[in-house]
């Protein structure tokens, strides 16, 4: 018996919840780790650290995310380190995202004139205060468009987690197709579901950019 549209949508929505969890978890890792790496890369005196970060960024960005997920999920399992599919997706996409955002944040901080920070230090602010009140707010404003791009890319990339059987939208869509054969309806629903998540996110970032006068 063909599944009715409400059943399809409810099933896919369940996948959307997983996709959202993966995206938020990965974004958190990417943001925190990416910022930490960028700060070390920009401010550290140790050339070896900077080289290591550069190598990490290049490596993560030049290997497909799917390959990273396979390594985390199947590769580490063979040496006894077992992730859940969702866990592997969060960590994998998070580590890839950290490389992307490290690049973005680093470029943002380098784009700031060195005088901005010097003026803060000259006023008697500590380096941490200069970072918190002067460098980071301006860096985030400068990089907001790139962060927005990353966020929508990340949401779309959660779909590759279906390849390691994380129960997200495409995973359920394929299952539904093999059990009901209503291919066009199911995939069209999946497409619309992705769009209905990504468009508002992009819109929110655009709005934020306008409010903060980015690029003005």
């Amino acid at each position: 018996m063909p599944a009715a549209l409400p059943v399809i949508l409810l099933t896919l929505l369940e996948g959307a919840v997983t996709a959202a969890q993966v995206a938020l978890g990965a974004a958190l890792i990417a943001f925190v780790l990416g910022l930490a790496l960028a700060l070390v890369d920009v401010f550290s005196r140790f050339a070896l650290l900077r080289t290591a970060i550069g190598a990490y960024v290049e490596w993560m960005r030049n290997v497909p995310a799917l390959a990273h997920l396979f390594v985390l999920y199947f590769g580490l399992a063979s040496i006894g380190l077992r992730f859940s599919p969702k866990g592997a997706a969060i960590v994998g996409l998070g580590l890839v995202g950290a490389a992307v955002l490290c690049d973005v944040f680093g470029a943002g901080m380098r784009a700031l004139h060195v005088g901005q920070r010097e003026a803060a230090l000259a006023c008697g602010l500590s380096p941490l205060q200069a970072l918190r009140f002067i460098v980071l707010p301006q860096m985030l404003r400068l990089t907001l468009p790139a962060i927005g791009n990353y966020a929508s890319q990340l949401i779309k990339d959660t779909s590759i987690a279906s390849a390691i059987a994380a129960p997200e939208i495409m995973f359920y869509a394929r299952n539904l197709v093999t059990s009901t054969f209503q291919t066009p309806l199911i995939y069209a629903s999946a497409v619309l579901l992705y769009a209905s998540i990504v468009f508002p996110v992009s819109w929110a970032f655009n709005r934020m950019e306008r409010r903060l006068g980015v690029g003005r």
Partner: protein
Amino acid sequence: MNDILLTVKGLKKSYGATEVLKDISFQLQRGETLSLIGPSGSGKSTCLRCVNFLEKPSGGEIVLEGERIGTVRTGNGRERIMSDRELAPQRSEIGMVFQGFYLWPHLNVRDNVALASIKAGGMPRAEAYELAEQMLDKVHLRHKAGEYPERLSGGQQQRVAIARALAQKPKLILFDEPTSALDPELVGEVLGVIRELAEEGRSMILVTHEIRFARDVADRVIFMDGGVIVEEGPAADVINRPCKERTRAFLGQVGEAAGLAA
């Protein structure tokens, strides 16, 4: 009167093999305005930036009111340069005004002036804002307190930067070519403010290309070239009657450009 505020002794700075400052020594009296002049690359800006350790000197010492700036004696009796965190309290006693203003564009004028008082000085916000308004009044920009820097002219931005330095209640203010980035018609308003500060008896070091201004406002002038002090003395003497050939040559060049002879 002999009330020494700042002593710079044997100051050296090298970048790799290039020696930018070679054994610079001078003193600043409390309430005195000292002007550093000299050709581009003579080391005068580097010298100024060494005073608050934005540049770390390669040798020598800076003493402000008896306190060594920027270095501490370690357990084994050797000197080491302080970290930026350790330097923060010392730097808050030394105001600095930059050639490029460097107001913080994401903060309005009031917050630009008040930020350091609040965050570094621990002053309550209301009090810091009151102080900021007073300092903005001194540079005749109280009415711009709510504006963002991008809405101000270059001259106004530099005056805000001066107010920001004043809000630190500094013992000493450093001016690093404060008018060099300004359109000619905006130079006057900034120099006017600096002149008022000099007349208030603030202690200031001014690196400038405005020779005539240095002559009129500074108590003393130091002429630097090639990383050394070539000549120093009362402003009018050094600029009107220089003894050294190099000083004469430099003043001749800039004098022609600025019509200094008048």
